């Protein structure tokens, strides 16, 4: 248990780990018959590997890495559309840096930039707004990407642009929501899931009630968790205790940051600016009903899809994943990253083939960076 020394409070971590081991025994879970716990958020995936929580916890727990890394689930067709927008001479394309290396069919944004497109990495959509103010003769497009944590920032930015009457600022909206893919995974007969560790910062915006269906309709526990390794361990313990006791509840381990009903200002801004799309494509998972957002007609002047006639509005097109890429199978927990034949060969963080290798929150990149988990060992 040497890694536990890295914890901020190693003694507390050991106590929780002991308790986890006890409850796993009480459940009767073993390496052959493990409990399957999905951590939904990519930040949690990163923390699990960084702190080796998958190795510290008993073999009776199998972590399934959820779809909660927005960069990883971005479909290739959308990357292609970004490149298409960015290559227009009048456009300044602004994006979070994370999206730069996601492979598209022709090229990534990084390659498009190298080829001369005016692509700028920004920290905030507010930076994009400021670029639009300073460049009135150019079209500034912001690549709106991310879950409910990020969605309020683009909604508030669009509201601000509307107040100022900016005519050269649009958002290419690719915002997605957490609950629908969870429902899709629970409906998949091949998925075995016994409980969930819920995302902390998404929940800070939406509160805990959007997950109620997981307990009520599917009878599975979910515990909203913070990002400290100890938070994660405590949350795993809370999920295990529910499984042992035959309970299915939505619990909030991260109440010091996550209010039960979320953030009212952010929720109001999202509702004002965005509406649900009938469906949205997720890389590796396919089309999922009501899982994406689009800009309401009232804000069409700030919608890059409407302004440039691109994207879902102009007819969706799905693109095949590259040859040999097993991202879909990894995303649904059917295989571990190391079982993908491209892992570490045709696909590395420097030269990613699939999107799960791009961001430190992607399962493949986390495996690669921190040397994987127990699942690696039998293969060695």
């Amino acid at each position, binding site marked *: 248990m040497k890694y536990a020394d*890295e914890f*901020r409070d190693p003694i507390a971590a050991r106590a929780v780990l002991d308790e986890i081991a006890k409850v796993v025994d009480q459940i009767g879970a073993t390496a052959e018959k493990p409990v399957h716990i999905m951590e939904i*958020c*990519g*930040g949690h995936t*990163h*923390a699990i590997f*960084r*702190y080796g929580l998958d190795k510290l916890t008993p073999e009776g727990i199998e972590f399934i890495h959820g779809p*909660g890394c*927005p*960069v990883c689930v971005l479909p290739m067709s959308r990357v292609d559309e970004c490149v298409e927008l960015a290559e227009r001479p009048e456009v300044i394309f*602004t994006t*979070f*840096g*994370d999206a730069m290396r996601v492979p598209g069919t022709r090229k990534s944004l990084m390659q498009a930039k190298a080829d001369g497109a005016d692509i*700028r*990495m*920004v*920290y*905030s*959509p*507010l*930076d994009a707004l*400021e*670029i639009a103010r*300073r460049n009135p003769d150019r079209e500034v497009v912001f690549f709106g990407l*991310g*879950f409910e*944590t*990020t969605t*309020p*920032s683009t909604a*508030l930015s669009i509201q*601000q642009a509307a107040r100022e009457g900016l005519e050269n600022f649009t958002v290419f909206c690719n915002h997605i929501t957490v609950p629908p893919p969870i429902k899709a995974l629970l409906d998949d007969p091949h998925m075995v899931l016994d409980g969930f560790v819920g*995302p902390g*910062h*998404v929940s*800070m*915006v939406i509160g805990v009630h959007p997950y109620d269906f997981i307990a009520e309709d599917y009878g599975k526990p979910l515990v909203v968790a*913070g*990002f*400290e*390794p100890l938070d994660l361990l405590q949350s795993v313990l809370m999920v295990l205790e529910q499984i042992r006791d035959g309970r299915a509840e939505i619990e909030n381990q991260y109440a*010091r*940051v996550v*209010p039960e009903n979320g*953030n009212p*200002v*952010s929720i109001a*801004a999202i509702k004002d600016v965005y509406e649900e799309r009938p469906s949205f494509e997720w890389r590796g998972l396919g089309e999922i009903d009501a899982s994406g957002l689009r800009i309401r007609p009232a804000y069409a002047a700030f919608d890059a899809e409407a302004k440039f006639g691109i994207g879902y509005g102009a007819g969706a097109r799905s693109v095949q994943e590259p040859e040999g890429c097993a991202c879909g199978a990894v995303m649904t927990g059917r295989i571990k990253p190391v079982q993908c034949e491209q892992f570490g060969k045709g696909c590395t963080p420097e030269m990613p083939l699939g999107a799960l290798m791009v*961001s*430190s*929150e992607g399962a493949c990149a986390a495996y690669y960076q921190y040397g994987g988990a127990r699942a690696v060992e039998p293969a060695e």
Partner: protein
Amino acid sequence: MCLGIPGQIVAVTDADRMMAMAEVSGVRREVNVAPIAQGPLEGVIGKWALIHVGFAMSEIDEEEAAKTLEALRGLGEAQETLEAMAAGDAALEGTA
């Protein structure tokens, strides 16, 4: 990109746009405080908040701020965020 970083609000800079100066790990950065504002905007001064892509998303207490910052440093996310902020500044000038 989804984790955010704790910062302390030190001054209101543009009340119309709900903008304030935040100090994030020794770096000053203008942020939008609409999600945490209640009543007169001056009320946000001195508060700690979780700052995500330029927005103060949620008020937190000072102890939570310290804990979160430490967790983010452990994951390398704090450094990444500060680099993204610097890249954002460069992007305004068209140099990045």
